[in-house]
């Protein structure tokens, strides 16, 4: 696994929108803060650009991201926002130059496609972390974890115990992201190989029954067979059918993984909500789940 070099003051972060449209004004606070941290910022052509739903045509988004990947004067790429769109580009990206000059690629939600692909096909670590919108929130604690991660500080994340947690301790590469996208990638060349790994999952706006269906797909495609550990983040604004499914999201997940023995924790601070700590995707972590606490530390 290639670990890109950590950043130092004076390094440059590129901002690019490979998926949905992001109005330029929504990046102002983000740019100010990155600058205040001592970084230079380079704005891609897709920031503030709109082609219907997307931040440009496929060609424009591809060209912008490719240019950022190939630009040796940039040390990290922050994806401005998620939405949808990377699945349309991923097979056309060229990672040759990135392999020679590795850099951190930052984002979550739709950016899960990029994290998974980098892990499986490029063998490169990346950063599952807040994007530009998070910089404007009143609670910046998760945003500061991104700063620490970029500067190479080893981190420990903790969370409160949950009655559904399954205790245990495991060390393995930390991978994962948005459940819908992890499921969507199954069967494709970007599908995650989860043997021995610590998998984290979060989602937003999904129906409970659909979460059940996606977990069954993961189960039936072998994702859980040799998994090291499972971290369940936030499932924000999940929906139910008119006739209720009859289980909460946490109950659905607990039921689907009860036949396995790997450690599981719930309510970890990774989500579409404010609690969304920076996680180094592809890097080994140690997950410890005890009755009293949960900790995730870089191994």
């Amino acid at each position: 696994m290639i670990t890109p070099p950590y950043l130092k003051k004076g390094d440059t972060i590129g901002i690019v929108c490979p998926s949905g449209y992001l109005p330029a004004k929504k990046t102002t606070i983000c740019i100010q803060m990155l600058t205040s941290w001592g970084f230079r910022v380079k704005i891609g052509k897709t920031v503030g650009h709109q082609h219907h739903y997307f931040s440009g045509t496929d060609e424009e988004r591809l060209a912008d991201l490719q240019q950022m990947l190939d630009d040796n004067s940039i040390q990290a790429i922050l994806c401005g926002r998620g939405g949808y769109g990377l699945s349309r580009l991923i097979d056309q990206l060229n990672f040759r130059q990135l392999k020679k000059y590795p850099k951190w690629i930052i984002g979550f939600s739709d950016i899960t496609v990029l994290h998974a692909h980098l892990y499986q096909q490029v063998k490169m670590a990346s950063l599952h972390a807040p994007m530009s919108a998070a910089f404007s929130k009143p609670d910046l604690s998760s945003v500061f974890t991104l700063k620490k991660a970029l500067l190479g500080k080893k981190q420990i994340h903790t969370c409160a115990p949950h009655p559904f947690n399954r205790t245990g301790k495991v060390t393995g590469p930390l991978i994962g992201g948005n459940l819908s996208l992890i499921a969507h990638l199954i069967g494709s060349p970007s599908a995650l190989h989860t043997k021995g790994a610590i998998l984290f999952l979060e989602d937003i706006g999904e129906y409970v029954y659909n979460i059940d269906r996606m977990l069954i797909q993961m189960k039936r495609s072998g994702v859980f067979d040799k998994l090291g550990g499972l971290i369940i983040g936030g499932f924000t604004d999940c929906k139910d059918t008119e006739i209720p499914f009859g289980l909460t999201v946490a109950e659905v997940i607990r039921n689907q993984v009860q036949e396995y023995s790997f450690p599981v924790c719930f309510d970890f601070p990774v989500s579409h909500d404010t609690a969304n700590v920076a996680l180094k995707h592809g890097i080994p972590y140690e997950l410890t789940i005890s009755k009293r606490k949960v900790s995730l530390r870089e191994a």
Partner: protein
Amino acid sequence: MKRAQFISSLVTTGLLSSSALVAGAQERKHPLRKWHIPPTLQKGDAIGITCPSGFAMPEDVAPAIQYLQNWGLQVVTGKTVGLKDHTFGGTDEERAADFQEMINRKDIKAILCARGGYGAVRIIDQLDFSPLKKYPKWIIGYSDITVFHSHLHAHAGMASLHAKMTEGFPTDPSLFEPVQLQALDTIRRALFGEPLQYSVPASTRNRLGEVEGILIGGNLKIIETLSATNSDIDTRNKIFFVEDVGEALYSIDRMFCNLKRSGKLSHLKALIVGSFSSIRPDDPQEPFGKTIYDIVWEQVKEFNYPVCFDFSVGHQKNNVALKCGVPHRLVVGEQASVLTQIQAG
């Protein structure tokens, strides 16, 4: 093809309603591999009704029972009809047991799934399909029942019937539009072994061509969520059809990306696009900007096989019975697209 031209002319002259069944389709000897095709039904045969997914109450299935009896069939109402476990037609155990009993029974020659919804994938791995080798039978349904079509195709090589379910049968036939009654009658024709042929008017977005191949497909979302599982279908050299309901355009686009990236669009004989109904509205600030035609076309433009849009399959009144796992001939012509079942020789 003379026959196709003939049908096309009927469509264009208005003698044949769009997607109407064409009676008396010529029987052909098929040159393709013979799959396990359940025997056609005879009057007096038994057909089971069961709920592997969402629940159905006795009053929901009553019109179907009446209709099936009028066709001369005996109806075996499964234990799950009338059961309700939240959204499901009984617990997983109850639904699996009921379906298993239908599979095991020698006298049951077809199984009509009462309705879709969600739940088939929760029981599919608990079912033992091996008795189907001794007692082959038609499994009927669509939407969530795509799990069965896909699984049977992947495992048993067994043909099945993608068709309307119990809610498609009317309490009072006079309240149904002719197209709904015609679509229902295609189930009867399919089960009793009458030739099946469907014609739909040409879409300007079609890619023309003529092919023969085994027909498979179903609900796009279900096909995506079966990807890389042991119910996943091999679409190579198949005539592949998809439909869906209630999805957002971006989600349909993403699912077509999955089909493409998992290799399912690469070696098709043809692609049939049914209806994508009740599409979830876009955020008015960010309209997706592509139609279903654009979405499909972008994914298949690099290939050469025929593509037929607006086919009469999906969550709509005109949802004709399609025999999955059975060889068909598809002619996508200038005037019409015609899908013909190739009769076993």
